[in-house]
């Protein structure tokens, strides 16, 4: 019998890893704390750079892992290290003995309410990147006006922000802001759309094309300056203040809606769980890989592996590739046993 491999987290990293482990003949056991698979990506509507429907990605993965053992609405109570195996105790009372554990625990989206000056949860028309994706996907959202004339995107919300407790750049939100800005312009061509950024970090495949298209084809306004505060006018519009740093002048604008680009953090719960097996956390707050160049998918503990955003912010394709790499690491590890 092929050895058990426990995968913690049923997002795209965990699902892709389960799929590859099945191909190799292992029996993966996928544990997901929520009631459905797909993680954050399942909340998203379309994915850059080709506007692939996120649901397509998730549905394909679901088909591929039909034969995996999946526990939904199940958490991990604790992990015990035995001689050369691990005992994983689940919240549903099941106890699993396995040779390898894959952490595919992903990230927490920054709680935008913590940046009080932006008024999320306080003003009527402030939403997050995630809220907007859900709305694109067909969810109702009373905070989004029927025909907004002006929309602002605030970059780096809960990222690159020592006070918010996260010094890191979340890497994908510049690109997400530009993608969403274009989607807003496509829905509301008459609207004025503003992106407030500190730096534009557009590193990936075809990202720069999106930037140019946002400027050239959609006339999105890019304003270099971090939004300092947001207030609500009596008519419900939002008064946004920033410094127009290229111009060296303070700037204000009234908007019908504001979208906060909430960043990615290593989950608190994940870290608590990791404490149990004394797993190291890196200086950026994410799990510490054995090596950040060529052993990203291995932890410093034998038999414990990583895939996806639990070791740092990642894009969807990066996460998928990493899940495959992690499975190869697991395979090599189990072969040597």
């Amino acid at each position: 019998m092929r050895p058990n491999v426990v995968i913690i987290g049923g997002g795209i990293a965990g699902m892709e890893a389960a799929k590859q482990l099945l191909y190799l003949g292992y029996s993966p056991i996928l544990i997901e704390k929520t009631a459905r698979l797909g993680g954050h990506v399942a909340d998203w509507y379309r994915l850059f750079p080709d506007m692939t429907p996120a649901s397509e990605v998730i549905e394909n993965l679901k088909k591929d892992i039909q034969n995996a053992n999946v526990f939904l609405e199940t958490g991990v109570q604790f992990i015990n290290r035995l001689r050369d195996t691990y005992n994983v105790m689940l919240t549903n009372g099941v106890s699993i003995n396995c040779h390898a554990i894959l952490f595919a625990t992903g990230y927490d989206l920054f709680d935008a309410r913590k940046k009080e000056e932006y008024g999320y949860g306080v003003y009527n028309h402030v939403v997050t990147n995630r809220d907007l994706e859900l709305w694109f996907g067909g969810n109702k959202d009373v905070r989004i006006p029927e025909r907004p004339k002006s929309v602002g995107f605030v970059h780096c919300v809960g990222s690159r922000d020592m006070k918010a407790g996260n010094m890191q750049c979340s890497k994908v939100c510049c690109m997400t802001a530009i993608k969403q800005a274009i989607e807003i312009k496509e829905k509301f061509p008459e609207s004025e759309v503003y992106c407030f950024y500190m730096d534009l970090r557009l590193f990936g495949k075809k990202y720069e094309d999106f930037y140019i298209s946002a400027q050239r084809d959609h006339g999105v306004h890019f304003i270099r300056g971090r939004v300092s505060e947001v207030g609500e006018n009596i008519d419900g519009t939002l008064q946004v203040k920033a410094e127009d740093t290229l111009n060296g002048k303070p700037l204000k604008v009234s908007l019908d809606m504001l979208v906060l680009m909430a960043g990615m953090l290593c989950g608190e719960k994940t870290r608590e769980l990791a404490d149990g097996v004394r797993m190291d956390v890196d200086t950026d707050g994410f799990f510490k890989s054995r090596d950040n160049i060529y052993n990203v998918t291995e932890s410093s503990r034998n038999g414990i592996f990583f895939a996806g955003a639990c070791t740092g912010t990642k894009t969807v394709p990066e996460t998928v590739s990493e899940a495959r790499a992690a499975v190869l690491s697991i395979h090599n590890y189990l072969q040597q046993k």
Partner: protein
Amino acid sequence: MMDFGFVLSKSSTVDLNKVDLSMYRQLEKLSPDVRTCMACGSCSATCTAAPYSGMSVRKVILGLQRGNDVSAMLSNCMLCGKCTMVCPRGINTRNLILNLCRIHETGGRNDR
């Protein structure tokens, strides 16, 4: 006027809801590539007139986007075209300045 011994300074805040973009909108029609400026400053760095006159294509574009009158700056340009050579976004900046001068001359009627 009565002298109270103090003056009120005018706020320098730019209100994007009130800026006059008519000049910029006209330029967009003649030089649509103006939209793709990413404020890198290559144009101004290479401009021969910049150190002596403050000429800057970057500032001209930004100024228009913020509704400022940039005509004074335009007169400093020698139309040498160096800025066009270095613009990484391939904006025909020399032509852009010419177009702006045309708009100024004709008051926006593009009938020349």
